[in-house]
C-alpha cells in the first residue's frame, strides 16, 4: 500500500516540470467552473475568452505575442481555485481570468497578492470579468486586480436611475438571497432609492436562503398584497428563474428589475410569460444599434459556438485593453501592463470605457434591457431577446462611485 503511495507521489513529482521559463506566447489562465452544476456558465465564459483571443491573434497578437487561453476547472470552489492557480503559475501563466463566484474571486485576490509579495519578479495579474462584490474595488482593493464588469453598487445606481425616471413607481419590493451579495444589493437599493426618490416606499425587503426555495408563489403573494409597483432582485440561477416563473403564473404584472436575467439559460427557463415583465441591467444587449463590424463579430461568435449566445462584451473589452496596455508599455510584463492599464480609455462599439486608476474598476455605460418577443437577435434560439429604448442607457460617468480604496503600488 505505502509503496503504491510513494510510487504515485514520485511519479507525480517527476511528471510536473519545475517552473518553465516565460515563452513567446502570452498565456491567460481561465480559472472558472468547467464541470458540475455551473459548468455551463464557465464554459460560456471560456468560449468568449477564446474567441476574443483568436481575434487579437489574427491581428498580430498582444504587442506581437500570440495569446493562449488555458482553461482550469476550479469546480467553483475557492480552495480548488488556489490549487489551479499554482498549476497555472507552474505553466508560465502570468495572467488570470475569473468571474464566477465572489468567494473564488476573494480567494484569488488574496492569494495573488501574497504570491506577488512573496515571489518578486514572478508577478501575476488578475482580470476579473464578472465577480461584482463592491468590496474588491473598495476596502479590499489590490493593485493586481482589475475589474472589467461594473460592480453591484454601480448596477444598482443604474437600476435606481431608471426608477428615478418612472414617476408612476411609488412602492418598491426588494427580494434577495440570504448571503453577502443579496444583502449588499438590498442595502444599496434602500440607500440609493432613499437618496434619489425619498417619496418611494420600500414595501418589502426580503431575504430567502440561497438555492433552497422551490416555489416562490408565497413570496409573490406577499408582493401582490403589498401593492408593489416594481420588484428589485439580485437573484441569479434557479432562484431568479423560479421567482420570475412564479410571478408569471400569478399574473404579477410589474417590472422585475434583475441583475442576472440575461444570464445563460435564463431566457429558455423564463419563457414567453416573462416578456415585457423582466428587465436586466448589463453593459450591452445584442439588439443595440452598432457599427456593422460589431454585428459581424457577434455573428462570427454565434456561428462558431452555436449553443452559446453572445453575452460578455466585457471579455472583448478586457482583451483589447490588455493589448493596448501591452503595446503602450511595450512589454507583457504584468507589472508594466498593470501600470499602463491604469486610467486607460478604450473605444468600444458601445461607447468609451475607462479603467479607473484609483481602484481598478471599469467605468462603462449600462443599459436596462427589457425581455422582448420582437427582436432582431434572440438568445439561445428561443425567439426571445433583450431590447432597450429611450432612457434605458446610463452613461459611464454616472456609474462612478466614491471609493474607499487605498491602493499600495509596487
Amino acid at each position, binding site marked *: 500500500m505505502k509503496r503504491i503511495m510513494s510510487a504515485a507521489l514520485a511519479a507525480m513529482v517527476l511528471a510536473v516540470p519545475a517552473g518553465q521559463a516565460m515563452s513567446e506566447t502570452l498565456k491567460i489562465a481561465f480559472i472558472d467552473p468547467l464541470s458540475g452544476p455551473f459548468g*455551463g456558465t464557465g464554459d460560456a465564459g471560456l468560449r468568449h475568452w477564446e474567441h476574443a483571443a483568436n481575434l487579437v491573434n489574427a491581428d498580430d497578437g498582444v504587442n506581437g505575442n500570440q495569446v493562449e487561453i488555458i482553461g482550469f476547472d476550479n469546480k467553483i470552489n475557492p480552495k480548488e481555485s488556489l490549487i489551479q492557480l499554482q498549476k497555472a503559475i507552474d505553466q508560465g501563466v502570468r495572467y488570470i481570468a475569473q468571474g464566477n463566484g465572489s468567494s473564488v474571486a476573494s480567494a484569488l485576490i488574496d492569494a495573488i497578492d501574497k504570491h506577488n509579495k512573496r515571489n518578486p519578479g514572478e508577478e501575476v495579474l488578475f482580470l476579473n470579468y464578472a465577480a461584482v462584490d463592491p468590496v474588491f474595488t473598495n476596502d479590499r482593493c489590490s493593485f493586481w486586480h482589475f475589474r472589467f464588469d461594473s460592480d453591484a453598487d454601480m448596477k444598482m445606481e443604474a437600476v435606481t436611475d431608471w426608477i428615478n425616471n418612472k414617476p408612476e413607481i411609488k412602492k418598491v419590493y426588494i427580494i434577495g438571497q440570504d448571503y453577502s451579495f443579496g444583502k449588499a444589493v438590498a442595502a444599496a437599493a434602500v440607500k440609493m432609492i432613499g437618496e434619489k426618490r425619498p417619496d418611494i416606499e420600500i414595501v418589502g425587503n426580503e431575504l430567502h436562503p440561497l438555492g433552497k426555495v422551490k416555489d416562490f408563489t408565497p413570496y409573490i403573494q406577499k408582493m401582490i398584497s403589498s401593492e408593489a409597483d416594481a420588484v428589485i432582485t439580485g437573484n441569479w440561477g434557479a432562484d431568479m428563474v423560479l421567482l420570475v416563473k412564479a410571478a408569471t403564473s400569478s399574473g404579477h404584472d410589474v417590472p422585475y428589475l434583475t441583475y442576472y436575467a440575461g444570464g*445563460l439559460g435564463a431566457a429558455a427557463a423564463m419563457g414567453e410569460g416573462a416578456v415585457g415583465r423582466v428587465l436586466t441591467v448589463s453593459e450591452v444587449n445584442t439588439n443595440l444599434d452598432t457599427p456593422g463590424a460589431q454585428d459581424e463579430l457577434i455573428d462570427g461568435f454565434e456561428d462558431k459556438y452555436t449553443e452559446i449566445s453572445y453575452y460578455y462584451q466585457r471579455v472583448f473589452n478586457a482583451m483589447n485593453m490588455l493589448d493596448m496596455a501591452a503595446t503602450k508599455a511595450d512589454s507583457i510584463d504584468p507589472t508594466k501592463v498593470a501600470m499602463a492599464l491604469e486610467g486607460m480609455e478604450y473605444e468600444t462599439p458601445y461607447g468609451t470605457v475607462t479603467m479607473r486608476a484609483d481602484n481598478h474598476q471599469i467605468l462603462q455605460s449600462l443599459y436596462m434591457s427589457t425581455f422582448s418577443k420582437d427582436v432582431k437577435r434572440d438568445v439561445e434560439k428561443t425567439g426571445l431577446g433583450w431590447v432597450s429604448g429611450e432612457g434605458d442607457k446610463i452613461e459611464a460617468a454616472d456609474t462612478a462611485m466614491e471609493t474607499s480604496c487605498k491602493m499600495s503600488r509596487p
Partner: protein
Amino acid sequence: METILFSLLNGVIYGLLLFMLSSGLTLIFSMMGILNFAHASFYMLGAYFAYSFTQVTSFWLALIFAPILVGLFGAAVERWGLRKVHANGHVAELLFTFGLAYLIDEVVKIIWGKNTVDYQIPHALDFPLFELFGAQYPAYRMFILVVAVAMLAVLWYLLKRTRIGLIIQASLTHPHMVGHLGHNVPRIFMAVFGAGCALAALAGVIGGNYLTTEPSMATFMGPVVFVVVVVGGLGSLEGAFIASLLIGLMQTFAISISASFGDIFGWAGLSPTSELGSITISSLAPMLPFLMLVLILMIRPNGLMGTREV
C-alpha cells in the same frame, strides 16, 4: 384572512407536489430499506423525457409514457445494479444510489446539454383560472392538484383493495414472511422500485415545467424528499402524505411572517439590528423542514405515522 387563504392554497399545492415526489421513495424505502439517493434523479429524468416527448408529440402523451419509460429504467437499475449490491448490505445499496445520482446528472448533461431546456406548460392549461385579491390563480396549479389527488386515489386503491396491494403492503412491514409464503420477493422488489421511480418521474413531468428543467434540478430537490419520507414514517403512505402537506403548509405560512427574532425576543434584550435579531422567520422558512427532520428523529424516530424505527 387574505394571507391565510393564500398560504393555505399554496401550501397544499407545494405539499402535493412533494407528496408525488416522495410517495415512490416511501414505498421503496419502507420495503427494501434503501434510502434511494437517486430518487430525485428519476424525477429529473421524468422531466427531461417529458421535454423530449413534447418536442415530437404532445404533453398528454408525455404524461403517460415518460413515467412508464423511467419506471422501466428504474426496474432495470434494480435488476442489474442494486440486486448485485444487496448482498453487501444497506450502506452499500445506499452508496450505489448515491453514485447513480452522480452518473445520471452527468449523462443528462451530455444528452440534453448543460443549460435549462425550454420545457413549458402546455398552452391548453396556460391560463388564469380565477382571480383572488388581485392575484391570478393559474389553471396549471389546479391541474397539479387534480393529478396528485388522482394519483393518491389510484395508489390507495391499488394498495388497499387489490391482491397485489395486499402483498406489497405485507412486504412493507414483513418482507421475510411474504417470502416464506412463496411469493417472489425479488420480483416484487423490482416492480416496486420501478413503480416508485415512475411516480417520481410523474412528479417530474408535472413539476418540470412548473418549476425548471435543468441538470441541477435533482440536487436541488433531493434532500427535502428525504425529510418527507423520514418525518412521515417508515411504511406509511399516509404519513408521507401528512408530512408533505405539513411541510408545504409550514413553509408557506412561515414565509408570510415578516417578524424577526429581534421583534420576538426583544423582551430578552435582543436588538433587531444585531445579526441574530435581524433574521426574519420568513427567511428561515426553507430551513424548517430540516429542523423538523432533526427534531423528529430525536424525539420520535418512528416518524409521524410509522410503525417501525427508520
